[in-house]
């Protein structure tokens, strides 16, 4: 079933994955991507009629708890690893157009 994706199609995936389309090894990345895609395509031949998908090996169920306060990170701890902060905020590029 699989066929090689074109450069444009792979570039679209790169953008959806929030990687850079200006990658140095772009041709190699496209080539590797197509090789792996062709490899995993072996599954297309497996008969899975009447088989339910398995997302998780154990039964999953909701876990409820009382809504009580617990210890979390302090603002300082939460901001410890950001490289561009302003007071107790993280600075980011302009998101909403308008006055900055």
């Amino acid at each position, binding site marked *: 079933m699989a066929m090689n994706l074109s450069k444009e199609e792979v570039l679209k995936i790169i953008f959806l994955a929030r990687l850079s389309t200006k990658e140095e090894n772009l041709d190699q990345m496209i080539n590797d991507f197509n090789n792996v895609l062709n490899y995993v395509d072996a599954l297309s031949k*497996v008969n899975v009629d009447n088989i339910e998908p398995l997302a998780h090996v154990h039964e999953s169920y909701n876990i409820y708890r009382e809504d009580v306060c617990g210890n979390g990170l302090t603002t300082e701890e939460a901001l410890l690893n*950001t490289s561009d902060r302003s007071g107790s905020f*993280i600075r980011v*590029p302009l998101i909403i157009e308008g006055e900055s």
Partner: protein
Amino acid sequence: MTNLHELSLKQLRTGLDNKEFSSKELTEHSLARIASHQELNAFINVTPEIALAAADVADQKIKNKDVKSLTGIPLAIKDLILTKGIKTTCASKFLENFVAPYNATVIEKLLAEDAVIVGKTNLDEFAMGSSNENSAFGPVKNPWNHTKVPGGSSGGSAAVIAAGLVRATLGTDTGGSIRQPCSFCSITGIKPTYGRVSRYGVTAYASSLDQVGPMAGNVEDLAVMLNALCGKDPLDATSVSLKTPDFTKNLGQDLKGLRVGMPKEYFIDGIQAEVRSAVENAVKQLESLGATVVPVSLPNTEHAVPTYYIIAPAEASSNLGRFDGIRFGNRATGCETLEDLYCESRSQGFGIEVKRRIMMGTYVLSSGYYDAYYLKAQKVRRLVKNDFDKVFAKDCDVIASPVTPTTAFDLNSRVSDPIQMYLNDIFTIPVNLAGLPALSVPCGFDQNNLPIGLHLIGKAWDEETLLKTAFAYEQSTEWSKKNCYK
């Protein structure tokens, strides 16, 4: 005190408690060996000050006879696991300077046993790899032969035990990342049943497959470590509420009545002849210890690797979405839009294999391809699990197989061929898809003196039978006694 590194955890416990040596002396010995084995590149970060301070506290506790299972014993941690106040890089340039503000639950558990953490070990970036060559901090060398890979992704955690730098470590296993490096380095390691050990604070690669586990020099040490790690954690909804047995309790029991399954799909053409014969001999040894060997079939084995390379990248692409360059990690400069900031920060910070998997995961989850790839893979995953369920329901108690088709391969020999690299995990991946426990125990060497591991797979929640079987095997053979300490 020159042979402290040759003592087992049990011997270290006795020696420390009898004041034959102090935790400070033991820790200094470990740090000195780490310093003299830097050519292995097995550590990303060594923490002598933290370790020596912990050793002092441990010595005080030992003096007061306030002793836990790991009091004063030096351990090393795979650098995928968050350690408060100590850098956690995940072997990624993206997290080069990241210092976690909290500990993973498994770290809290080790600290509650008064263990001494000496540093963070090298790995494949975000645990994506089978050779430890995908590390932003360079590859680890196999202590048995420096031209060979140590395996991966927990390559550093295996190498530091094989080289006699520490006695036990933590690894993680998503598709074989504990068992394969153990096999390549002639040590033991167990991937517990999915849900046995908390994943809180363990950087997520593929959440439905990831599991933390111990690595050690022998099976008894492994059981001591596992005792410290297990249990339900309210911070990880996938951890399971089951009483943790004492995993050392059944060690030494005989193997009478044990049924060992040999799946024909795991003894295929293409396996290195010496690996096949070492594993077949190991199974004969289990038979001579009282076990019965039964041929079994796991017919969907061949589909496991492609299934894994859809499911794991899908989960990875989602998990790694949090690496946006804003709250933590690498932040690209000079970006005018938020989108550019995301793309550039990630592109600069991630290595090639991580990008490959994020791209594949993004594709198989994307509109129009979800059913053909991701949903299909989830269905095949059930077929793989059904195979195990069937044989464990009626045929056998444990399954024996090789850990890997070959012994450790040459550094740089497979990096340019992702699929060849992926096939290395053909016998370990099905276990993660089914969520089962499995371990690796040394069972021989090839003609180049490279280690071979015996893979034992168990029923869900039955680590005890696995450890009992591995212990009986280990005690009746000489393989685990061989070392490459320098």
